[in-house]
């Protein structure tokens, strides 16, 4: 790979400015990147409906990683002595292809697995899913979004027939009368969202926050409910119980637009407030006030986030809040409804187009014959050749290298060594693989274990689309090309597919076109696609590659693959996105409207009605006991993102949040003989973490908290429980039993 080859993908000079979106969370704040010509890149926030000109420190500093000294610019291959050493792309790709072939030959196709990420663009997520099913023909693909959105997704699907984080624009939050946030801390996780909440409160609305910690968000609230971790479901059932006893249920709506209420009504009859007070610690008066604030308002929104969802009963917990929203007649009403706050940048799009073990593009079920036929036709393969459903993320990682489990793993855009539950076990599973390949732009903790590390492009170096927390499809725009030696993920997939005897008719090199995008390396013998304004890639007479490297071409194929699915992108074009602040799916027709608000008239269920699901509280998978007497919960801090691979390398963010910590109540600290800053050990049945104590009266005295952004001794996920939700596969990150002592 040479600079010359790379330059060949370009026709004009690179753009000096790019209107794009932040690389981090699902708020996808609008920003402008400007190359000052002297090597410096300036980030400016821009007015966009979600961030309204705001940016948090992560966004402001996002460009610092583009030319960071730690940036990977050459493939790394582990040598016989065990060291990762720089290597030529061909050597690296050959090593991978040989490894994959060997594993496939000896152990079968399902012995190769793929692990994706919720930060990948729609194009990359789609291509990765296709790569797994068509090039690898393995059923084993899943992604870290499983640990983010899966519980809300499953509950949304079973209630509404569709999973779109927010079924309405984010700006609706500013106009709702009562807003209930359950296990959400946007003041730290997506700060500019707070502008909408400030709007809401300025209009006289009420903000109620449910969180075991008095978070920065809870401090803004008119009312804060501080339940014991693991009792959110019971709180929701009690709220519905009160709504029933106070006559707040919207009987007309329930009769006209829902089904299954009777079973829920009888179930919540058993959740009288005094009993739930005893279980959760939330005073009856506060439960009543909350139910009334929701039930008597002209408009109300209920939002859940990871605090409610990352439990072994996460799906049922979300269902309990969905039940409440339905009983109050909220979904489909103006400035009302249920929604979840998606976490990762493309957590929404990432789960719609085939990264999930059981799904095909367009949010289709992989075991649905019609879905298989449609997608197989788009992919030009026999439906019978498509593998069946795989297993959810943790189950997949936990099976690696074990008898019958995958022996090779390709990781794109994820760092499970830090982010997986029971991380020490996952780390040992990764070490047991025959082949571990990681595509990343930094040496993540997972990359450190890899046999081959492939350096890939960053957000400012690629074009594509992202789908934000509202289901709004956005354009990510490249400011510049990737540095020499770096390829895009699409190019990596194309190259690997070619080496794996991809039988695609267009597997050979095609001409490259005039689209000034970062379409990765060209002139390669492996599937560079025709590009330009001809998404189908046939106008110039060439046959499209099975794994095109131009994201615009990939998106055109994604549109066709998603057409007719739940998440229908058929009518979404890049031009349309650019001319209208994004496009809300479903959008089946290029000439037709998109869908900012769902459910106004009907629900996409077979009956057109939303479905109630009776759900019961149950204890956490691991309850406190004499040996492990405290509840442990995890979360995020403002200045860090996910596993910290990126943000821990930004100087300003490192200053703001230099290392992990353990947050505990001063009363608890006093009993343990721990002072502020003392190193403490938090031990569970699965492992321990060591970090300095941070004393705060904002947490319950029976609960300790640690952020999960750090590796090594401070790794919170060394402690967490790998129990998973039976429906969604969501691990129980948010509660386990621990012992705390001075280290």
């Amino acid at each position: 790979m040479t600079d010359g080859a790379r330059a060949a993908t370009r026709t004009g000079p690179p753009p000096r400015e790019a209107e794009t979106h932040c690389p981090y969370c699902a708020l996808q704040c609008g920003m402008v990147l400007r190359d000052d010509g002297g090597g410096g890149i300036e980030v400016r926030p821009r007015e966009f409906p979600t961030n309204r000109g705001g940016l948090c420190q992560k966004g402001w500093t996002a460009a610092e990683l583009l030319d960071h000294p730690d940036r990977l610019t050459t493939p790394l291959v582990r040598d016989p002595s065990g060291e990762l050493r720089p290597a030529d792309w061909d050597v690296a790709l050959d090593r991978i292809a040989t490894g994959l072939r060997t594993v496939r030959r000896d152990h079968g196709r399902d012995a190769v697995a793929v692990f994706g990420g919720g930060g990948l663009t729609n194009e990359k997520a789609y291509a990765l899913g296709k790569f797994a099913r068509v090039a690898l023909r393995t059923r084993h693909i899943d992604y870290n979004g499983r640990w983010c959105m899966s519980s809300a997704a499953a509950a949304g699907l079973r209630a509404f027939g569709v999973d779109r984080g927010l079924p309405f624009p984010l700006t609706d939050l500013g106009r709702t009368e009562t807003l209930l946030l359950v296990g959400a801390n946007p003041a730290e996780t997506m700060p500019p969202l707070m502008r909408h909440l400030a709007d809401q409160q300025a209009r006289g609305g009420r903000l109620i926050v449910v969180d075991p910690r008095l978070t920065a968000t809870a401090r803004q609230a008119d009312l804060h409910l501080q339940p014991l971790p693991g009792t959110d479901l019971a709180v929701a059932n009690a709220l519905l119980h009160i709504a029933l006893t106070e006559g707040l249920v919207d009987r007309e709506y329930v009769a006209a637009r829902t089904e299954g209420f009777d079973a829920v009504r009888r179930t919540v009859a058993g959740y009288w407030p005094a009993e739930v007070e005893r279980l959760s610690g939330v005073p009856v008066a506060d439960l009543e006030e909350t139910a009334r604030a929701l039930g008597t308002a002209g408009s109300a929104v209920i939002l859940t986030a990871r605090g409610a969802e990352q439990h072994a009963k996460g799906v049922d917990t979300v269902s309990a809040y969905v039940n409440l929203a339905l009983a109050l007649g909220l979904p489909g009403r103006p400035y009302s409804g249920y929604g979840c706050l998606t976490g990762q940048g493309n957590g929404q799009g990432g789960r719609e187009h085939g990264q999930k073990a059981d799904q095909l593009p367009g949010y289709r079920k992989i075991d649905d014959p019609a879905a298989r036929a449609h997608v197989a036709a788009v992919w030009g393969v026999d439906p019978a050749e498509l593998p069946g459903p795989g297993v959810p993320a943790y189950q997949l990682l936990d099976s690696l290298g074990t008898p019958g489990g995958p022996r090779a793993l390709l990781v794109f855009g994820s760092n499970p060594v830090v982010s997986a539950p029971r991380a020490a076990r996952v780390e040992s599973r990764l070490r047991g693989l025959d082949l571990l390949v990681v595509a990343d732009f930094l040496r993540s903790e997972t990359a450190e274990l890899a046999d081959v590390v492939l350096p890939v492009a960053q957000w400012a170096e690629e074009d594509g689309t992202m789908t934000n927390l509202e289901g709004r499809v956005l354009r990510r725009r490249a400011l510049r090309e990737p540095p020499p030696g770096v390829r895009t993920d699409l190019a990596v997939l194309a190259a690997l597919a070619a080496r794996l005897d991809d039988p695609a008719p267009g597997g050979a090199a095609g001409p490259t076109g005039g689209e000034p995008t970062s379409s990765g390396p060209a002139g390669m013998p492996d599937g560079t696609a025709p590009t330009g304004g001809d998404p189908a890639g046939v106008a110039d007479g060439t046959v499209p590659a099975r794994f095109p490297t131009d994201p615009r071409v990939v998106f055109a194929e994604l549109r066709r693959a998603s057409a007719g699915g739940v998440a229908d992108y058929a009518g979404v074009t890049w031009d349309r996105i650019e001319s209208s602040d994004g496009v809300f799916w479903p959008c089946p027709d290029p000439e037709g409207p998109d869908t900012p608000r769902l459910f106004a008239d009907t629900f996409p269920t077979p009956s057109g009605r939303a479905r109630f699901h009776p759900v019961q509280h149950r204890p956490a998978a691991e309850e406190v006991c004499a040996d492990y007497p405290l509840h442990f919960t995890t979360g995020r801090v403002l200045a860090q993102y996910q596993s910290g691979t990126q943000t821990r390398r930004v100087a300003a963010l490192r200053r703001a949040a230099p290392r992990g910590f353990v947050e505990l109540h001063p009363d608890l600290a006093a009993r343990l003989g721990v002072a502020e800053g003392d190193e403490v050990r938090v031990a569970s049945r699965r492992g321990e973490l060591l970090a300095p104590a941070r004393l705060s009266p904002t947490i319950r005295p029976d609960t300790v908290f640690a952020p999960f952004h750090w590796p090594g001794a401070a790794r919170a996920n060394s402690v967490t429980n790998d129990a998973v939700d039976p429906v969604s596969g969501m691990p129980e990150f948010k509660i386990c039993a621990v012992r705390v002592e001075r280290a």
Partner: protein
Amino acid sequence: MTGRIVIVGYGMAGSRLATELHARNGDRKVTVLGAEPHRAYNRIMLSTLLAGKIDEPDVELAEVAGQGTDVRTGVAAEAVDRAARTVRTTDGERIDYDHLVLATGSRAVVPPLPGLDPAALPARVAVFRTLADCRRILAAARTARTALVLGGGLLGLEAARGLAARGLTVTVVHPHPHLMERQLDPAAGAVLADTLAGLGVTSRLGVPATGLAADADRVRLHLADGTHLDADLLVLSCGVRPDTGLAAAAGLAVDRGVLVDDRLRTGDEAISAIGDCARPAGGPTGLVAPAWAQARVVARLLTGEDDTARYRPRPVVTRLKAAGIDLAAMGDPTGGPGEELTFADPARGTYARLRIDDDRLTGAILLGDNPSVGTVVQLFDRGGPVPTDRRALLLGRSLGVAPATPAASPALMPDAATVCQCNDVDKGTLVRCWRAGARTVDEVVAATRAGTGCGGCRQAVGGIVDWLSEVDSVGTTR
């Protein structure tokens, strides 16, 4: 061995056991006999039904059917033949069982008053226990303007509150000098009586009833002090008695409840008892939560899910929560070793008394607006250590944490104080920015990024800029 299970009683305990068994797969035949003619309902919600806030269907409990579960309503058990392991029903059928669970509940006590025949209550007199009782009261209440409630315990007060909510003028007659004397001290009782008075419920305390005269439209209750009270309706709330007739007739040991061990097993290994009719160690509670816990233990034992499952009684928390009333009582805060905390604001109906022994909460009465009630209940329930600052137990969140807004005057803020969390900007940085020449909020924001995240600190940044310009102008004029 437990292939055929018969549950006698379809109240809160019996229906819960049926649900618990149904949730556990297995090849079992479960027969439930319910003497009342309707499906299982939530007794706790009857006072809400009485208050007119909900309708009858709203009190129905989740019902199970199929998978070998057979619920027979309107059918009572008449006798148990332990040797033959059969139950004879009121419709003459004999049902074989491998295991029998008694969940017969309890009955309302009708006090021995001259003029009151328990077997034939006058039209305008009712006890308050079952859905049928509730219907009876509601029927009478439709044409009533005044009501008497005999008995100032928890259930009596709930009934009184419910009737008052329907617009009736209610008087509670209680033989003891203060209300809920088993749970409250005199001071709390007095505050509660005041609170009730504000809600339209008058209390006549320390006066036993001595007799009753009733016709089709009115009741007259004679009191020990020689006076009498007239009303359109009388609700008797004088306690309940475990319904143990069936068990006693079958020769099982009974002493204010069917005696059971911590497996809820009677002296007969093939017979268990749960709920109000049972008396495990620690005594009967008359509460639903223990009954449901017992149902769960029996279900786990009978299905073999967990042979070590045992019933552990939890300490009783009495909770009265109705519009305008918030009362929690637990343990005994009035005596014993340790510290005592009190707070009283009787004019606002607030009263708190707590007892702490060895850093553990051993008793509490909380009445009125006590924001700490959730914490107190959990500490009592779980035995957790109480806060070092005891005021947190009395004042809860109103004791609170420092507010989110920064110090009132920028002059008082230390330089290291963070003004903008989202962009990690401290006061010192803003001051340095000012010194470097930025003169407006927009300029300071542009240079420091303060206020560009959530936007919540814009006002604080403005305050600092204003303060700096004042300080500077003072400096200039000097």
